[in-house]
């Protein structure tokens, strides 16, 4: 079933993002340790700042699909609960479609941005690592995001169903 596959992909993506975050943690600790032991010929990890920056960007892109499938985005129920059922359904569907559209545009532009960075041969400051590498990893997260939003929209349209045995989105973190 396609939906199961997308849920599994989004969850795996979150795990990879989490591992990137753990790597950032270890990198920073190693850098601080190296700096503290400066006198012993050690030093901070070269390019630690730019690695933390790129790593955070990649992790966030990898986290977002799972946030969405778990209904983790911040919402306010103030008027929603007073709407008629049909309106509620319409609002939910519209949100899903708009989210899908927004991410399709963002992913398309991120892709274009990646090519531009590649074309201009832009690099980071210290490691002189091509900037487009980080963009490419982010594109992966963004594409998984598009799949997740598409799946959610299809479910909302009744064209697909929540995969069996997977947690249904919580009511939204307010």
């Amino acid at each position, binding site marked *: 079933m396609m939906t199961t596959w997308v849920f599994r992909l989004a969850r795996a993506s979150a795990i990879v993002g*989490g591992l990137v975050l753990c790597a950032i943690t270890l990198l920073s600790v190693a850098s601080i340790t190296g700096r503290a032991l400066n006198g012993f010929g050690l030093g901070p990890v070269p390019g630690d700042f730019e690695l933390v920056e790129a790593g955070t960007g990649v992790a966030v892109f990898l986290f977002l699909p799972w946030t969405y499938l778990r209904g983790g985005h911040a919402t306010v129920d103030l008027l929603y609960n007073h709407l008629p059922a049909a309106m509620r359904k319409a609002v939910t569907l519209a949100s899903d479609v708009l989210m899908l559209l927004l991410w399709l545009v963002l992913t398309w532009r*991120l892709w274009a941005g990646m090519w531009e960075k590649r074309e201009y041969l832009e690099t980071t400051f210290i490691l002189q690592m091509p900037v487009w590498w980080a963009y490419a990893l982010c594109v992966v997260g963004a594409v998984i995001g598009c799949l997740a939003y598409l799946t959610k929209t299809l479910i909302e349209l009744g064209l697909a169903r929540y995969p069996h045995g997977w947690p249904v989105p919580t009511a939204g973190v307010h």
Partner: protein
Amino acid sequence: MTGIELAAWSFPVLLGLIFIRVPIGLAMALCGLVGAYWIYGTPVPLLNQLKQVTFTTFSNYNLSVIPLFLLMGQFAALGGLSRSLFKAAEAWIGHYKGGVAMAAVGACAGFGAICGSSLATAATMGQVALPELRRAGYSGALSTACLAAGGTLGILIPPSVVLVIYAILTEQNIAKLFLAAFIPGILAAIGYIIVISIYVRLKPDSAGRMEPVPMRERWQALAGTWPVIVIFLAVVGGIYSGIFTPTEGAAVGAFGTGLAAWLAGGLNAKTLREAIYGTAIATGMIFMIVLGAGLYNTFLALSQLPQELAQWVIGQGLSPWLVLTLILVIYLLLGCVMDSLSMILLTIPIFFPMIMGLDFGLTPEETAIWFGILVLIVVEVGLITPPVGMNLFVINNLARDVPIVHTYRGVTPFVISDLVRTAILAAVPGITLVALRLTA
């Protein structure tokens, strides 16, 4: 329609979208993109801007502190640090009238010192302390209310995600904001403890009694909290005193709590996965709002509304204190229905230039820091004000047998203590700034 009119109209539209449950980040992004498109008259600049803006927003070095603080909170819970804090507090003061509730507030303050998020603090301490409170005979209203209020200490006491965002928006020093937040955070905890002691005197049946714990066990329980103390000193002490940047501090915190969790046997493949899911969902939520707010604020800047409004307010010659009061009241009202991060991201670009243009008899940096702490407090009140108070929902969700209305009622005196504290800190900037002035 001029840009300013357009921006003025965009507020009701945005709030309308948010209130019918369009995700906040999405609503802000859409309003921002549509508004900017309107002003530009062509989609080309926007499409070009989007080539880089998502990546540069998410890979901002200052923001990288946020997922790390969230991961740190997850690990702290896995390591049982929340439990050891509560046990220690309970051992020392649990036998007093209302003591278990006070212990819960104290433990929240302790957990707040190693966790940057209110929701995480409320959820974690709720899981630990709620069953104990009920077992000790505390009423549903008081049990849930003291934990919901205590949870706000997660963000009032540094480290604090909201302060990080404020620091970035206003280009202030994160370490100084953390230092300034410390005394108001402690005052908040003291205020909540005073509320509890009055509460249990007015409603004696809302609290049970506990047997005093022998002195030896008290010291043992206190000794069990050493990882919390070490990690707090390392993180906040390290950030302020000189060893590392806030992001590095958060990394040290995540590493330290992760190590503590592993040593306590709480960290394995399964719990690590759960910790990552929790971090992922919260991080995704925050960054979606940050992205949306960035797009919306670009539109606002293009419209010139913030600049013109600040000019207008300054030109009116209103009393600075009146303007400050109005702004704080707006935050309190917005806080009834919105979450803290969205509120700050949405309003600081408008309110901050206004405040900085007024004379409170402080240096610009002092004004910025003092205003930041006041904003922090009033937006956090929003977490415990009905009808939409996130901490209320989190705690109430843990206590299935307590109707939400009881929680609403129980939290009222805590909200009053918040308001009193806000008034005092607004009237006497010196309380907030004393720590800064002493270390300058």
